[in-house]
């Protein structure tokens, strides 16, 4: 079985009925899809299959021969975040982070599909995703901001090697 993940082709050795979630995490070492409920109920394992958001815990590898998968790792980089990643950062839409990769990928697909900034349609698009920190308000704010173009593009959020942190931390030693 062949699988392209984030543009890289892999020849799989997992048994054919292995759900994609475990192929990604255990065979390929790609750990942004999280193993939450593992029965399709929480959305933390959502990845993009041919650009469409799907629960990776429900998809047997044999059903995906030749498919193109995108995980959070394939969406952007610290140097060049995707618009939805920038929006999540700027709007404080991540708390513990467990639901974040699934939320970001579902939101990315929503934006790619021409989704607008109306809260109701964003709620519909993200309805299968559970945030146990209950950070829904800020998550929907972020998607709405990204849909409305109300973000800074490609903001860097991590200092590069040799650089100072971009923000001063109160009370930190000079």
């Amino acid at each position, binding site marked *: 079985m062949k699988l392209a993940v984030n543009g890289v082709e892999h020849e799989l050795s997992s*048994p*054919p*009925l*292995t759900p994609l979630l475990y192929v990604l995490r255990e065979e390929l070492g790609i750990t942004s899809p999280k193993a939450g409920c593992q029965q399709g109920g929480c*959305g933390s394992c959502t990845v993009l299959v041919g650009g*469409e*958001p799907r629960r990776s815990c429900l998809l047997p590898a*044999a*059903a995906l021969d030749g498919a193109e998968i995108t995980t959070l790792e394939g969406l952007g980089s610290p140097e060049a975040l995707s618009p939805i990643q920038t929006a999540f950062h700027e709007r404080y839409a991540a708390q513990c982070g467990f639901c974040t990769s699934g939320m970001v990928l579902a939101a990315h697909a929503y934006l790619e599909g021409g989704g607008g900034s109306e809260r109701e349609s964003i709620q519909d698009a993200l309805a299968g995703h559970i945030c146990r920190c209950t950070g829904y308000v800020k998550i929907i704010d972020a998607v709405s901001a990204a849909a409305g173009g109300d973000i800074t593009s490609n903001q860097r959020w991590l200092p590069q090697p040799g650089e100072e942190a971009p923000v001063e931390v109160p009370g930190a030693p000079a």
Partner: protein
Amino acid sequence: MATATVARGAGTEVLSPASEDEAIAAFGDGAGVTILAGGTIVVPEMTYGYLKPERVLMLGSAGLTGVARNGSRTTIGAMTSVQDLVELAAPLGPCAANVADREIRAQATAGGNLCAPVGRDAPRGDLQAAFLALDAQVRSAGAGGERTDSVEDFLADKDGRLVLDISFEEPAAGGFARLDRPHTHDYSALTVCVGRLADGSTRIAVAGVDGPAVRLPSAEAKADDPAAAAEAAAQDVTFADDALASAWYRERTLPVLIRQALSELQEAV
């Protein structure tokens, strides 16, 4: 060989037919075969170790998809996604839209929902009620060859059958009502579908009861009077009593849903 064996893994033979004919041949009489359509029920059952199939028939490449209209008749391939049904007329469209969330609906199938067994802690298969209300016909393969049954007959004897498609005549009107779900990942505790057929008769069905969805003949006999139909409905049902809702609660909310669905039907006529 009509069917390609993809590989063996974890002791299970995986068959991946590439057409309807190959799927029928691979299914045979169904003995020892587990059908994997969308996977939303079967895959977690395997993940959690409840299901250890000998042979899995994966239908993802077998075709069997699409909604086709021929005159007044609509035919839905077994592998059509539930999401692809949401724009259809009531009761099927709104019933499909009430299943899970977008991602699950895009993966779950019409045939899988029709065949969904009662879950370990909740009923499944809301679309059964819509298909009952529409007087749908189910074309299936298995022991004894291909056959076409009414939904009632099919649900009474669905084990060992491979669903190929589901078809029905466009209803004159439809109605749908359900108990609201706390979250999209919950199954519906109770779902009522009603259909006014072209011959003027009214069919009323309910999912979320003890077992597959059922018609409510006592309510149907009084369909012109929603209050009387609602009062008569409970005598036709054995209510499920599970983690989603008690039988007590379901018994008291069924009449409300019947009234809602019949009122919607009357407004639509």
